[in-house]
């Protein structure tokens, strides 16, 4: 027993550790700090294209840039700083705030020396989960597979002077005296110009457009309450990020309010409520939406795509596109949005794409795109 018990305990411990390492019972993921690495010898060999990609993504997740770069094929047309910038983003773009959370890979073709893998990357970002589909080319080099990272075309902005005529509204809140009567500044006049309720795969959706009819900027939020046959509210929700909250005078924004898990059949009435308050705002930057087209993509989905052109002299860190889609009667049949993960440098453009449900593709006749934006230090 003197030796048997320790040997038994050590053997069981080793067995249990092996069981955990080789798949029996998954270990919890790392939370908070993406750092550290597996103990030597525990990183699997890149014996298959999928494993090579898995190793690369693990290093990229943990920001082990040197190891990740070392895992690239020598035929890659990228240097390390460009590679890092391509993956981690730059100029305060959405990508700079994003972390790769997971991915699904699907081989497109493979030979003994060469493979093409399509990967759906799941990013965790401040504005919610974002998916990105990317094709990776891998080659067999030495004793394993290596990823060929394409040359990165980073937008360059020539030195220039962009004239700016500042136009912004500031608020003066007045003194500390009793506000009754002496400090009347009315809320901006905002009106819902259309509303449509439809059933979607996730529940019910109320959408439409809202206009600021006033001469001052307005912070706008559209709320809706679904009411059943007995007059009781079933649920109330708000437009959240499916609206441009700050509307300049005469500006129109689409809005969409989602009611997850609510069947429209149970809804008798929709109570709309638009709240508008006066806020400080700036008329800049002006972002043009160029070359908007509604086409099917490679996967057969209907996608509205185009280019955002920053016509101002300031960097737009995170552009947000909100589009309303109309049927032949001019009725809003869908509102969709999308974030652009590259920043929009002055006088440059970036592509965008917004997907619409397959079932609605046939109905859509035209569309209207509004660009919302976040610029560092200008909130």
């Amino acid at each position: 027993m003197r030796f048997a018990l320790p040997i038994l305990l050590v053997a069981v411990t080793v067995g249990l550790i092996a069981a955990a390492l080789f798949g029996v019972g998954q270990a919890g993921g790392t939370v908070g700090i993406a750092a550290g690495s597996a103990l030597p010898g525990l990183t699997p060999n890149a014996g298959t294209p999928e494993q090579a990609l898995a190793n690369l993504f693990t290093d990229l997740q943990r920001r082990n840039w040197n190891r990740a770069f070392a895992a690239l094929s020598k035929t890659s047309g990228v240097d390390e700083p460009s590679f890092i910038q391509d993956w981690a983003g730059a100029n305060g773009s959405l990508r700079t705030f994003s972390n790769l959370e997971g991915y699904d890979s699907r081989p497109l073709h493979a030979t003994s020396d060469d493979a093409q893998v399509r990967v759906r990357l799941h990013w965790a970002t401040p504005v919610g989960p974002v998916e990105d589909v990317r094709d990776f080319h891998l080659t067999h080099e030495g004793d394993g597979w290596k990823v060929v990272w394409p040359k990165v075309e980073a937008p360059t902005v020539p030195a220039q002077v962009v004239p700016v005529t500042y136009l912004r509204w500031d608020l003066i809140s007045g003194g500390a005296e009793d506000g009754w009567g002496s400090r009347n500044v009315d809320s901006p006049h905002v009106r819902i110009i259309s509303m449509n309720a439809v059933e979607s795969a996730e529940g019910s959706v109320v959408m439409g457009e809202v206009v600021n009819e006033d001469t001052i900027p307005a912070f706008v939020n559209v709320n809706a309450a679904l009411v059943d046959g007995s007059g009781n509210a079933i649920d109330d929700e708000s437009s959240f990020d499916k609206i441009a909250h700050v509307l300049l005078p005469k500006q129109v924004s689409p809005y969409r309010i989602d009611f997850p898990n609510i069947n429209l059949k149970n809804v008798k009435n929709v109570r709309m409520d638009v709240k508008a308050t006066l806020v400080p705002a700036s008329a800049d930057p002006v972002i043009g939406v160029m070359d908007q087209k509604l086409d099917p993509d490679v996967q057969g989905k209907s996608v509205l795509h185009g280019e955002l052109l920053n016509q101002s002299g300031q960097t737009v860190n995170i552009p947000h596109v909100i589009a309303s889609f109309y049927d032949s009667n001019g009725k809003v049949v869908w509102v969709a949005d999308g974030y652009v993960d590259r920043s929009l440098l002055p006088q440059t453009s970036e592509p965008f794409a917004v997907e619409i449900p397959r079932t609605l593709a046939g109905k859509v006749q035209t569309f209207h795109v509004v660009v919302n934006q976040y610029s560092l230090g200008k909130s």
Partner: protein
Amino acid sequence: MTLAQDPHLPTSAVAGDETTISTSGNGQAILYLVGPGVASKREISLGEDIHLPSRELQNAGRYVVSVCSDACRSGSFYVAAAEPASLTFLVHPSRVPVGLSDAISGVALPFDPFHNLVRVPMAITFQLTSGKTAMMSRSVQTQDGVAWFRTSSGKDAGVLHVVAAVDELSARRAVQQVASEPCNLRIKGQRTPKAILVETEPVRDCSGNPVPDGTIVTFTAAEADGKSTVDAPIKQGVARAQIIVTKAAVISAASGVVMGNELRLGAQP
């Protein structure tokens, strides 16, 4: 020490004026005064007049007086508001498009120096002037301490001064009269090597008032297989945008629900 009867209280008191209470009997007692903003307690000699200072009677309302020796005897009296010393004047809206009927309204309430609502009927004069032009002058009698008016907005953009006055008192408010919807929105375009620069003519409403800067004009360039749009703000009366168009396109402009003219441009050579 006896308290013969209830304290003798004033039949009418005015806010901010002192008053007296008389008691009967003899000996010492405690006088309690409870009213709006006041809860006081003091020793008194029965049979003597008790002086209530003005600072205890500044708020209009009902006051309860209780005099206690071996037993308590109580009564109550009302304090009315004094002469008006200020006007609370509510005017809406603070911004109004020109030429709207019954668009401006105001409510005036007179208060005395101690913030008591003065309910005695009195005539309040409402005056509206735009620049040097008097738009309205009306005298309205208060009812339950309130007087009000309603009127239409003028034709010219600018500040409208609204004054409510009673005797020497007055309260002044300002209403910004702003241009109405744009009228005859017209655009012109110019092709550059990279794009088309398109701009509006000075944007005005149907009365000729300039539409405020910051108002959004949406430019749309429709091509055969797509379109481009720019939401541009009016700056110094004109909205400008740069649209990248290489093919034949129809360029239009809109502000809110108002549409402008169209420009037809051929393909870039």
